[in-house]
């Protein structure tokens, strides 16, 4: 792998940047691999990277039906935080945040992880109770999260409107200072480059179309649009398309796939110093390194794979944005898009084994899995390599929908992203 650095940049500048090499190879599929990862999003690529770096399994293919990072990894509002309520979730997401903190260096790729602080607003007594419950639980779990009064919230984020005359005035906020954002594309590319350097084959334009199983039902191979590939371990990390892929192994998943929309404004000079989320009035917003305000809208109500949605969804979000930040009312929407999020009944992910031997699944991240990318990849790699879950992902098993041990962050707090 050619090292990236300021020096390298200067050196290449003299050569007119002629000698940069591809960041990852355009690999041709081989006949067989020790493990095949279905889905070249952040989670799939990270899984391959950790399989190679931590578990010594580098004869791995990542199969991506389109271009890597083109799924939700390339469409999300990049909010990263770990102030989840339940012990299981806090452990999972904080594992990821810790990995984020050294990721640029580990990958030798600047993923622009920016710990600008994620502030979640309270607008009524119920919100306050719910956020306080999070804060207390987080503190005992060693996850930073603190309560701010409305005024302190405004000091932290000056554009915020805290006028009492608002329809739902801000009554306070929970702030996780270690939370922030990262450059989504760089995460996919950085993992791809580093995994490729370890020998992982990243195969784009290669859709998995069938899963072949042998005696006893164990997986044997995947059929793809680029031929059959044999393998004894398949890790499905296909986000919105997981139900479709798992159906190839006759598994009916507890998932529904919904369009989730987001949008950006025209770029403006730095004005917004952090990330703000309001679950009650449905808005979340940050400003990217390039200057656009990155704004998350809601999901459309129905199952769909169209990667677009209805107009009323971003309209609703922008109502909330204009109410919270009336100075942004004259700014303009530059682009709006949608992704397909795979949602579980308890809004927590599924990471683990399946009833089919050799088939593993990592899905159900819904509206909030970008933040988990490094942790998810690491834990899933562990699970694939050892054929058993890491203690952190053990509770996130598929079986919980049979016996009822749900990890219901949604029911507990209804805070998603």
């Amino acid at each position: 792998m050619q090292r990236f650095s300021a020096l390298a940049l200067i050196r290449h500048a003299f050569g007119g940047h002629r000698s940069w090499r591809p960041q990852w190879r355009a690999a041709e599929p081989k006949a067989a691999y020790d493990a095949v990862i279905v889905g070249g999003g952040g989670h799939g690529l990270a899984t391959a990277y950790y399989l190679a770096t931590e578990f010594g399994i580098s004869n791995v293919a990542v199969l991506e039906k389109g271009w890597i990072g083109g799924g939700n990894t390339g469409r999300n509002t990049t909010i990263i935080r770990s102030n989840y309520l339940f012990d299981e979730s806090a452990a999972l997401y904080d594992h990821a945040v810790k990995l984020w903190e050294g990721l640029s260096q580990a990958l030798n790729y600047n993923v622009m992880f920016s710990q600008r602080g994620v502030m979640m607003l309270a607008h009524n007594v119920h919100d306050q109770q719910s956020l306080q419950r999070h804060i207390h639980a987080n503190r005992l779990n060693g996850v930073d999260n603190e309560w701010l009064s409305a005024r302190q919230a405004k000091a932290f984020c000056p554009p915020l409107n805290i006028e009492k005359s608002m329809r739902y005035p801000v009554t306070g906020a929970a702030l996780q200072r270690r939370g922030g954002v990262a450059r989504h594309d760089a995460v996919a590319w950085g993992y791809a480059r580093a995994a490729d350097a370890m020998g992982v084959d990243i195969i784009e334009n290669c859709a998995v179309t069938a899963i072949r199983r042998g005696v006893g039902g164990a997986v044997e191979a995947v059929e793809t649009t680029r031929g059959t590939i044999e393998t004894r371990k398949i890790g499905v990390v296909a986000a919105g398309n997981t139900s479709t892929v798992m159906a190839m192994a006759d598994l009916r998943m507890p998932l529904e796939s919904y369009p989730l929309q987001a949008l950006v404004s025209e770029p403006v000079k730095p004005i917004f110093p952090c990330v703000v989320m309001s679950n009650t009035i449905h808005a979340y917003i940050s400003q990217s390194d390039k200057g656009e305000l990155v704004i998350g809208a809601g999901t459309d109500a129905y199952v769909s794979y169209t990667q677009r949605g209805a107009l009323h969804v971003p309209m609703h979000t922008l109502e909330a944005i204009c109410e919270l930040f009336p100075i942004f009312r004259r700014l303009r929407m530059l682009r709006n898009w949608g992704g397909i999020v795979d949602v579980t009944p308890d809004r927590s992910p599924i990471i683990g084994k399946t009833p089919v031997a050799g088939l593993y699944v990592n899905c159900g991240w819904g509206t909030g899995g970008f933040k988990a990318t490094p942790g998810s990849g690491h834990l899933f790699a562990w699970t694939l390599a050892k054929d058993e879950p890491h203690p952190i992902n053990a509770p996130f098993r598929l079986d919980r929908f049979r016996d009822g041990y749900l990890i219901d962050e949604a029911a507990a707090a209804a805070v998603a992203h």
Partner: protein
Amino acid sequence: MSASCRLNAGGRIDRSRPLRFTFDRKVYEGFAGDTLASALLANGVHLVGRSFKYHRPRGIVAAGSDEPNALIAVGSDVRFTPNLRATQVELYDGLVAQSQNHWPSLGFDFGAVNDVFSPLFPAGFYYKTFMWPKSAWKRLYEPKIRAMAGLGRAPTLPDPDNYAQRHAHCDALIIGAGPAGIAAALAAEAHGARVILCDEQAELGGSLLAERKATIDAKSAPSWLADAVAKLSRSAKVRWLSRTTAFGSFPHNMIGLVERLTDHLAAPAEGRPRERLWQVRAKEVVLATGALERPLVFPDNDRPGIMLADAARQYLLRYAVKPGSRAVVAAAHDEAYRAAIELAAESVEIVAIVDIREDASGPWADRARAAGLPVLSATTICGTRGRHRVSSVEIAPCRPDGKVGARSRLDCDVVLMCGGFTPTIHLFSQARGKLRFSEKLNAFLPDGGAEGIRCAGACRGISGLDAVVADGVAAGEAAARDAVGGRIEAVHAPVPLSEDEDGGRLEPLPHHRSPHRVKAFVDFQNDVTAKDVKLAVREGFRSIEHIKRYTTTGMATDQGKTSNMNALGIAASALDKPVPAVGLTTFRMPYTPVTFGAFAGSARGNLFDPVRVTATHDWASAKGAVFEDVGQWKRARYFPLKGEDMHGAVARECQAVRQSVGIFDGSTLGKIEIVGPDAAEFMNRIYVNPWNKLEPGRCRYGVMLREDGSILDDGVVGRLASDRFHVTTTTGGAAQVLNHMEDFLQTEWSGLDCWLTSATEQWAVIAVQGPDSRKVLERLVDDIDLSSAAMPHMSVREGHICGVPTRLFRVSFTGELGFEINVPADFGRAIWEAVFDAGFSRAITPYGTEAMHVMRAEKGYIIVGQDTDGTVTPDDVGLSWAIGKAKMDFVGKRSLTRPAMTDPDRKQLVGLLPEDPELVLEEGAQIIAELPADAKPKSKDAPIGQKMIGHVTSSYFSAALDRGIALAMVAGGRRRMGETLFVPMPQGVIKVVVTNPVFLDPEGKRLDA
């Protein structure tokens, strides 16, 4: 100030209305009908901004919404608006405009050092550096990168303007009012269709606004246009909208339009909306959006004064502005000749027409030569000079293989370029229409697949005015036929596409310089050069989507209108693939940026979300009540007396209820009336409780579950008759519960004979609670026997209060003797006041939700949503007694036997008493079983190292008990009665004792006081 570049005659400007405006504080003059761009050009101003990354001086390139460079801030104070395109800003008297992205000034910008160091900033450079030392990212690199980014400044004051919204329907929505769109609108109207025609420009006409010689139907273009607009205006079936951009296309033919109402006015009428967002549902859509001209990619093609040829022609003919006096015209498409000829006719010196094509022949070249214009075939542009405006170009002959010959210089003050045209298929593609690449036209053309959307005119590759008009007619007729139905027999066929047309060029122009060093811009706004695109390919970014994201080409505020096709051409050749095999990036809304305010519309302040208030709201308000938001409702939280805080008010209110009588507005509770012979059976299935044995006139506390076994809602149910139940729900749960009930009734048990009616809003509910409550009510009710014997706890009676019909419940959420008076809502205020007057001598006290919460907690009553959270079963909160044990089934029953639901370690509702009675626990505080080693944690975020076994759900100071009390959910809580547990707080650990959750009057004696 004289407008030196303005022609004395011609154009569509109104010379009788001069307007003054400022640009970067300097005063200029223009005319009504000008855009800011045309007025600046009329004043000889080309330099209007600095580029995003390299801060290069930039000028006006285009004449429409495709302008990539001339982004300007307009207005001041509260109406300051950044990033507007000068080409779309209409001039008004007093307009204040400022250039952007420079320091200290447009002419002298320190940021321009970036241009010098640009070799260090190739595409994606930031991914490769700024990683060491790690800590410098946050403190140094990132703030620096961020400060460089962004174009304009965001406003800093709240926007005072209003925005309107409107829904509309039509048979045919026609987007674009050029010749094709107007012809389509006329044709559709003539065939009986309801038509909406919109165009983003100030005037209808599109390309016709810059036509003077052409004729349509034997009329001159301007008079055809005037007649057509007059005709459209007269028709009752047509609504035409100028200044209205169709910005997005959504499923099932919904199109979003945004109409700009006041930005072009010097003094808009007070309160007039600034913009109006239209949501149009069209049976058929005709896209007549024309085509966008493409720049040519050559070294230093971005200097001010280098502009699109057809744009220059429009400035000349529509605005009577000469963009320069000595023009070099760079042609890869015949339209450049047309511009050259028109400019020459207005005495702009055409230094040369430099045609990259090998053989500049054909009618246009002949006409140019005939007009005496120098035409150079097979010639390329190798570079340009000029600091703030182009002063010369370097040209050279070139061979088809790209070999470049001897160079020479042409002095000029403007360069006009035309690389060809790109059909405006944005909305078609947003609607998931299929595209086909035409090698001849070098363009993607619409190719079906978008239901109910057809294209006409230049946007489907048709050129030539007659053909475009005929195509518009055909599209208008067909739209009318498909929308209105079979009334039209013969429809004109769409004009066949002539693919001998001139497709222009997608490749950069050849030159002699190192392609790794020169800047030949592709995306002007994001400073993406041809070499950036090639670098991306070299680095292994093979998908056009990756190339876009790595280089940011097409991601600026113009979304690649002028650049995407050139970027694609370069990428395709670098990848050595045909253009269609590389393909376009995804088109997304909006077509041009749309104001947030237009999306938000009227939703601000009180219109942000309905404010629902009860009948006694004004009374409570007058009494100084503090309200809280519960869903959309405003509820009185407490009624402080002068100088009283919440704590004091709540203690006083509770005391009043416990000692004499209090009055509380419970109107927000959801109410559903369930009627029919099978009502009880329906209730049996929906609730965990049994209902058969409940006598008419009696009430029961009911609990209902989701199918997964968790508590959905609860509330008191009164049986009014054997076939009629009056059900109450929580305030927030009302709509959800009704939907849940309708769902089962309609889809699972449609055989049951019973019906649901929402009655939440029919009844005002006045709770009168406390030992004196009966005495107060007795004075107002004469047809109901209120005695305990006649009307025991948990009963309901119908009768009258002060002559007004009432459903009177004897229920209690406070643990005291109490009643809830239901009266028709419009009587709520009067009855409330009557009760208040009747209780005056007993010091009746209004109390709010906070006191209500305290009192119910003293009694261990849960609040769904506070003590439960969607994971809680009836048993968890001690409600197993409510479950009808004999019932075969009810919603959620099966789930209660799943392993997780019967786990002995589930969290259960308990009471907690802090060891220190003064102390009130924090709601949400966590509970652990053993005293931690460090009573005071070392650092704020150090993990406790012990499993949390529960949390506090409700906690108050109880005046009645004179101590803090709390409800909590604790793992295996009921086993732990009497145990001491610990609540670790940042300040230290609090000891608590686990108790029964009923703190007060466990035998319920007070209910019958």
